[in-house]
């Protein structure tokens, strides 16, 4: 298990940098720990939320998150900048998530969308009072709608929203072709929009 005895506070070591992720990772591979710290600061929040929004608890999310970063750390000697770092990072995360699903005897549904799923989406909040249609309420509702999405569509949305990945990168990370990734994302957005109703 990792020790936190001699850890340096993150705020003290992280400095903003204009270097690309790939350059930072290569510098880290060559022994510059500070480069990793910058990389970590850049991506820790998004990756953590990507994990958190797809599993049940904070503890599980932290475990997945830690495993992904440890893989990056342990495989740094073999890192080559063949793809974007974010694609590499989220591919590791996707694989770890699939392992988690398997361990939980869950499977990512192969079917992206059907009529039953459409009807399962919560009804729009059109009946709620005007005060409850505030942005904050809508955001909370969006989170609920997100949780109700099929896993593949939710993952596509999170890769887009949190990771900032392109369609090609989403396809690469999730191991599907571009059209499938596009379809998943389109369905996810459409369902969220339909769920929010009045917002559209």
């Amino acid at each position, binding site marked *: 298990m*990792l020790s*936190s005895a001699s*850890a340096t506070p993150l705020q003290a070591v992280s400095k903003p940098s204009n270097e690309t992720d790939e350059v930072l990772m290569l510098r880290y591979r060559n022994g510059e720990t500070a480069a990793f710290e910058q990389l970590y600061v850049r991506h820790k929040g998004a990756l953590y939320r990507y994990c958190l929004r797809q599993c049940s608890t904070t503890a599980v999310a*932290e475990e997945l998150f830690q495993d992904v970063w440890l893989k990056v*750390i342990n495989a740094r000697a073999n890192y080559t900048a063949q793809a974007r770092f974010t694609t590499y990072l989220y591919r590791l995360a996707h694989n770890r998530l699939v392992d988690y699903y398997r361990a939980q005897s869950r499977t990512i549904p192969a079917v992206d969308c059907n009529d039953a799923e459409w009807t399962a989406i919560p009804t729009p909040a059109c009946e709620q009072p005007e005060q409850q249609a505030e942005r904050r309420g809508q955001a909370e509702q969006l989170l609920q709608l997100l949780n109700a999405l099929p896993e593949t569509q939710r993952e596509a949305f999170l890769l887009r929203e949190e990771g900032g990945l392109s369609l090609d990168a989403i396809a690469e990370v999730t191991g599907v072709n571009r059209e499938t990734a596009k379809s998943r994302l389109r369905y996810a957005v459409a369902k969220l929009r339909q769920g*929010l109703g009045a917002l559209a």
Partner: protein
Amino acid sequence: MNERNDHSDWDDEISALYRKIPQPVPSTDLDNRLLQAARQPVQPSATKTRRWPVPVAMAAVLVLGIGLVRTMDREMPHSPEPSALQTPQFEAQSGLGSRTMASEKKADIATPAPRPDAESQLQRLGDRENSSDQLEQHRVIPESIPAPAPLREQEEIRGRAEAEKRSDRQGQPKFSRAPLVWLQEIAALRRKGRDAEAKAGLEEFKRHYPDYPLPAHFDLPEQLSDDL
């Protein structure tokens, strides 16, 4: 980093709303643990060291096995099957009559797989060369008794085959003509009466194949050999 321009279906309003959701981050303790791990030097992967022994051991076993088999093959005395040795003898008698033909057929049945090796070819060559002598000899041998191959002849055949194999194994230079072909040519020259060329050819042959045992009539003294 943000590559959303390629997606026309992206809903900026939903994206903006998503940003309103509380954005949790990992705990400071987790941050520190990971940064601590990142500072550790790269550990030599145990799998790299474990990756080699099995293939190396398999290769070593393979090399040793092949070496052992080859050594045993070299050191074991070569003993051709008796039936194989006898087959040419029956073939030698093929022109002598129907009774001999029947014997030949029996021999073929007894030795199901034909052996087109050096021994039988040599025997055929010698038979052709000595056809007149053999005819004389067979006239005096009773037909009812199949003539066993003389011990000297068997040894000679065996010696030729071994010498041929030895020359193959020891990497002796290969010539454009195989020894048997060469000897056939020399015999043909003799039959045509071109003894001088045959003699020169035989000397050349002996230079190239000093260990190759010649058929009996090739080993005659020079004055007799010239008479052939």
